[in-house]
């Protein structure tokens, strides 16, 4: 199959959450989402309770995919930052390490310049975490760490029971 599977472990998840929390504070943002390019939500923080995060993740990925298509048409590798300005809230979307998408939602308590500045710093940190995450997942799938995949044990009955209703 194409591309390595994205796997998230407890340790990296906590590191990522810590980076996002700090970014939220330093950028004065409202909400932050981290989304994988296929549209899966990886992590979020801030005032997430009124936002449909699953839909947000899939639409953001669609947005990035469409913009990426445009970039290719123009001979660019990618457009790494998208900015959407609203009456109240604004969206700052950026690509981290060419594989994940960082979304910052902010209002008049912050500014585009501040968000850009803080995102840049956080992106470097996130990039490093994802790099080590990919390496770890690769090592694991090659069996170097000897860890068991919980899914190797899935039985046909397990699968059938999901559809029992």
């Amino acid at each position, binding site marked *: 199959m194409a591309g390595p599977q994205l796997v998230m472990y407890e340790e990296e998840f906590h590191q990522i959450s810590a980076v996002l929390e700090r970014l939220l504070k330093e950028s004065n943002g409202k909400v932050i989402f981290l989304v994988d390019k296929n549209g899966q939500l990886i992590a979020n923080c801030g005032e997430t309770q009124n936002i449909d995060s699953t839909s947000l993740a899939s639409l953001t990925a669609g947005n990035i995919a469409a913009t990426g*298509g445009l970039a290719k048409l123009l001979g660019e590798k990618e457009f790494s930052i998208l900015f959407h300005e609203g009456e109240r809230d604004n969206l700052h979307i950026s690509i981290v390490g060419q594989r994940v998408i960082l979304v910052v939602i902010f209002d008049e308590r912050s500014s585009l310049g501040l968000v850009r500045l803080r995102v840049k710093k956080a992106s470097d940190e996130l990039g490093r975490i994802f790099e080590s995450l990919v390496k770890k997942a690769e090592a694991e799938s090659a069996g170097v760490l000897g860890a068991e995949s919980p*899914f*190797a044990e*899935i039985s046909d009955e*397990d699968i059938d029971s999901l*559809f029992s209703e």
Partner: protein
Amino acid sequence: MSFINYSSREINCKIVYYGPGLCGKTTNLQYIFTKTNPTARGKMISLATETERTLFFDFLPLSLGEIRGFKTRFHLYTVPGQVFYDASRKLILKGVDGVVFVADSQIERMEANIESIENLRDNLKEHGYDLDNIPYVVQYNKRDLPNAAPLDELKQLLNTTNVPDFEACATTGQGVFDTLKAVAKLVLQELKKGK
């Protein structure tokens, strides 16, 4: 490319409904949406034109319950079927775990079906997938119409690799869940093989 999250104990998988224009991909998702318990699904998003033709994609998140302590979530997507939206179609196949091909059973749509399958194969190849090696099922939709082609003919033309296939009528829901279950099962079996 499923996403396994050990931290929140979730598996996320992506299923794409593919097929020619007006074959009933969106109708499949709409039926699933109306018949699924609201606690097990999220909002359905349709990026469509004013005439309700899919412009970019439809999206429906479903959660199926737990398997070995992991919550299984399926994200269902449709592609725009019309020929000239090929650039968008290609984008949506990115990271796909399973594909449903929805065929239009009407005799006069046969060429469109064949063209769409070839297009699916080509677009998958661009992402590095081989249609013969990924979870894939075929649905013959609109079986209720008087001008529907005989089943044997459809199988012969559209299911040359003998994958699981289903007769359906997406407006009434016949065959819709059978199709979904079949592809979801194949995706989970793939996950099991995965490592």
